[in-house]
């Protein structure tokens, strides 16, 4: 059981330009931990096709009368402080995955970014250089993933909660002993505010003082 605490409107309000007060991001109810959202920014300029696939999976799509969405899927593999894997739309246990067209695809990006920082969203489970809906989120810089995995985005908010997710008890196959379920997903209408660049903010007062 989970209590549905957030909707798309709430997400939009949280990231609204008006800067409304933030809602609590955690809710402990009968031992149930609910988070209001992991927000990922997709690099549509670097990997457009993968971004489209992810947008479709977050929005929900239908193929052959079957509805596919990240909603009600699980994070099926958790390696503590290394990576969190999810996005299996079909089997939901890390053996499946699908795309809008139904066939695995080869990302069309001309540049491949490196896994040089934590909290990067990356395509998982390559088969002969082709990928499906499965993804992973890194929790530390992982250069060993650069050959097979494709960075398509980054985590914008929910960093602490992702760290918390990575600490759930797992079995010998890194399968979590408790269900980590995506209870809701979607496309954000308003983008989050970009983080202030410390270098730029450091330059500004200097320029003003010079003037």
């Amino acid at each position, binding site marked *: 059981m989970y209590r549905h605490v957030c909707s798309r409107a709430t997400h939009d309000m949280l990231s609204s330009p008006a800067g409304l007060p933030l809602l609590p991001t955690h809710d402990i109810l009968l031992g149930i931990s609910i988070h209001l959202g992991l927000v990922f920014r997709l690099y549509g300029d670097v990997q457009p096709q993968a971004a489209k696939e992810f947008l479709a999976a*977050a929005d929900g799509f239908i193929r052959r009368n079957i509805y596919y969405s990240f909603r009600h899927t699980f994070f099926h593999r958790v390696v503590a402080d290394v990576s969190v894997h999810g996005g299996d739309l079909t089997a939901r246990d890390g053996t499946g995955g699908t795309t809008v067209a139904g066939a695995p695809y080869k990302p069309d990006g001309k540049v491949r970014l490196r896994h040089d920082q934590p909290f990067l969203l990356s395509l998982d489970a390559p088969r002969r250089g082709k990928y499906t809906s499965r993804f992973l989120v890194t929790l530390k810089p992982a250069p060993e993933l650069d050959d097979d995995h494709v960075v398509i985005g980054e985590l914008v908010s929910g960093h602490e909660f992702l760290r918390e997710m990575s600490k759930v008890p797992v079995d010998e196959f890194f399968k979590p002993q408790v269900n980590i379920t995506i209870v809701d997903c979607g496309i954000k209408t308003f983008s989050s505010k970009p983080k202030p660049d410390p270098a730029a903010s450091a330059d500004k007062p200097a320029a003003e003082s010079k003037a």
Partner: protein
Amino acid sequence: MFRALTRSKRALCYAGAATLAMGLAAGFRGARAEDTDPSKAPVRRGIAPQTPPTGTPFLVDPVAWTNEFLENRIDDVKWMFRTRFTEEGRREREEILKIKGNIRPDIRLNDHYRRVYSDEFNDFELLSQDVPQFDYTPLLLSNNRPEIYLDVTIGDGKPQRT
């Protein structure tokens, strides 16, 4: 002479007369000049024309409406028989109702699929094949770094499958 007819033929005559009377009462009228030449229509002053200028005096064609109504009822009867008296029919009924979205209210379709699967778009031939997919290219053109959210819960209280 009418008395000389058999009872059944007399009944037929009564039925024909009744039908003719109903047709007349329903607004049957003879051909008028305005039907072929609208300029000859009488000018009505002070009130809006109560009937369409040409064709039937009714807002809908009663004959076509009746035919359509009966066809729909025949389809209903066929659907009823088809979906209630055989196992295949029951399965088909469940599939069609599932397609129409009455089974899983927790699935919120996005705008594209809500339109496709709404009642006004009732094309089962298309639904049985591939449904046209939504194109996210315009979204990427307007915002090349879009954001998605995933609401995650840890430990939903369900028993673990072993």
